[in-house]
């Protein structure tokens, strides 16, 4: 069997909320699988069910070939989890926290100390190794939580929004680490709201919205329909009205999408004539501040499938992240 994660018809509700509404998917051994969705889509709930922290209402789960449907904790020796919130022990130091987590998986003393030192080094926390976790900054906490999730070298790793709340350089470093883990054969289940991150790292992606998987495919196949498209994004000021009607009249072979707040997205099967387009807009009284040719990306697909503006999703998250 090469499936590391197998899920069939998994559902979970909390009183009135249908958090996960019957999802099915499987993740191959060694795959890096992305789980992408807006706030409250059911990502964390899914991870909790897969790792034995929550009991599904219906559905079947197999982790590493072990049937976990009735015994949610059966496969925990195979699994590492990095939760969405840092949950290590505030009164232990960084080093002690890592050693403790390794001990939970039965690692011997010299082995866990060596691994802890190595990971502290990888995450640039060696200087803070002897400081209490409670006194760490948010980003440092995040990094140590990730280190704690991989210290026992799990063959299946669940990462719940690993890069939320850490700086750009650390996020890049972390993505590198995830890619390395993937290369050495770890199966990775990654939830994120950074679409670009998912596109860069993941082999296959599932879009989840309101507890349902709306699309699941390889990144290549997902962007395929847009492969031969040309996309331009135009920002302008001074006009509140919807200009799409006027634009379609002048350019019947282009598709226009109103993104709101003075932004229009233009899509075509041939290169977009930006100059004439800007002139028409200016004739309508708009003051064009930017016109950008874009490579069609997963973000476009995400917006198209879910109807959710990706940038808006990201901003919401950052606000929440700041309050954590």
């Amino acid at each position, binding site marked *: 069997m090469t499936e590391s994660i197998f899920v069939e018809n998994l559902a979970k509700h909390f009183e009135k909320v249908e958090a996960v509404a019957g999802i099915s998917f499987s993740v191959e051994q060694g795959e890096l699988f992305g789980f992408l969705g807006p706030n409250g889509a059911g990502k964390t709930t899914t991870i909790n069910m897969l*790792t*034995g922290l929550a009991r599904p209402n219906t559905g079947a789960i197999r982790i590493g070939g072990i049937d976990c449907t009735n015994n949610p904790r059966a496969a*925990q020796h195979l*699994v590492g989890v990095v*939760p969405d919130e840092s*949950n290590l*022990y505030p009164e*232990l130091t960084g080093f002690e926290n890592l050693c403790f987590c390794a001990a*939970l998986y*039965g690692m011997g003393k010299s082995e866990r100390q060596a691994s802890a030192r190595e990971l502290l080094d990888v995450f640039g926390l060696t200087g803070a190794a002897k400081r209490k976790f409670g006194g760490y900054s948010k980003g440092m906490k995040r990094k140590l939580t990730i280190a704690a999730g991989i210290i026992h070298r799990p063959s299946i790793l669940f990462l719940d929004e690993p890069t939320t709340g850490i700086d750009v350089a650390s996020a890049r470093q972390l993505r590198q680490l995830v890619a390395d883990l993937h290369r050495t054969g770890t199966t990775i289940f990654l939830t994120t709201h950074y679409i670009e991150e998912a596109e860069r790292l993941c082999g296959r992606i599932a879009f989840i919205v309101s507890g349902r998987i709306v699309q699941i495919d390889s990144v290549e196949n997902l962007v395929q329909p847009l492969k031969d498209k040309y996309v331009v994004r135009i920002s302008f000021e001074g006009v509140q009205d919807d200009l799409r009607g006027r634009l379609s009249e002048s350019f019947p072979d282009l598709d226009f999408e109103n993104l709101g707040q003075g932004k229009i997205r233009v899509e075509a099967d041939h290169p977009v004539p930006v100059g004439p387009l800007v002139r028409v807009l200016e004739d309508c009284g708009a003051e064009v501040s930017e016109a950008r040719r874009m490579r069609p990306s997963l973000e476009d697909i995400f917006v198209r499938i879910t109807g959710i503006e990706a940038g808006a999703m990201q901003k919401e998250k950052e606000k929440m992240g700041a309050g954590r």
Partner: protein
Amino acid sequence: MKYWIAFWNILAKDMRTYYLKPPNVSWGLIFPLAWTTMFFIKSGAGLESIITLIPGVVAVSILFGTTSMLAVTVTFEKKNRSFERLLLAPIPFELLMLAKTSGAILFGVANAFVPVVIAAFLADLSAVAWRVFVPAVIMIAVASTFLGLFIAVAVSEVFEAQTFSNFFRFPMIFLCGLFFPIEKLPVFLKPLSYALPLTYGADMLHGAVHGGHTMPFALDLALLTAFCVFLFVASLWNIKRRWIS
């Protein structure tokens, strides 16, 4: 072997971060001392009467020492989510909860010997049947710890755990024959006494210290064991139902 590494480290971590902290150590010393003094002054008798107070003070020390700790080691860790780490660990659930409670059991046993050591300086303890006393202390510590666990997993806030355990602890001081014989209680309270584990532990302690017990030791032990098993199983069931829901 692997399980025992986890078991030992969970226990050692709790010991270091909770039980061996100065406030807890001094609490373990002051509390039994205060009870001994209080009852000693109240009884107004000579120093030799201390021996009749030992069973009650020992039992109270264990009861308060153990139950108050579970609110922190379990309820608080659940609240700040670090308990999830333990729930994710690949060790049998029973072993995990034993690791989480054995610190409190040891703390309870240590608390019990504070009044004993004090009494050794003030009275003659040569007549104490240690072969009964020690098992009684251990079983009371286990039963009280599991009672604390039962409470700690039934609530979600630390203050609830504390309030809720006082609801059990204070009546137990008076209902379990620690300082006043159960026979002197009003008839309608007696069934309640026999529904509480501490009654049987106190009976053993009285028997061990001054020979005044009402039930066979074997029966006391058997009933205490039954209470322990029930409280542990019920707590586990509750965790599975509430925390892995």
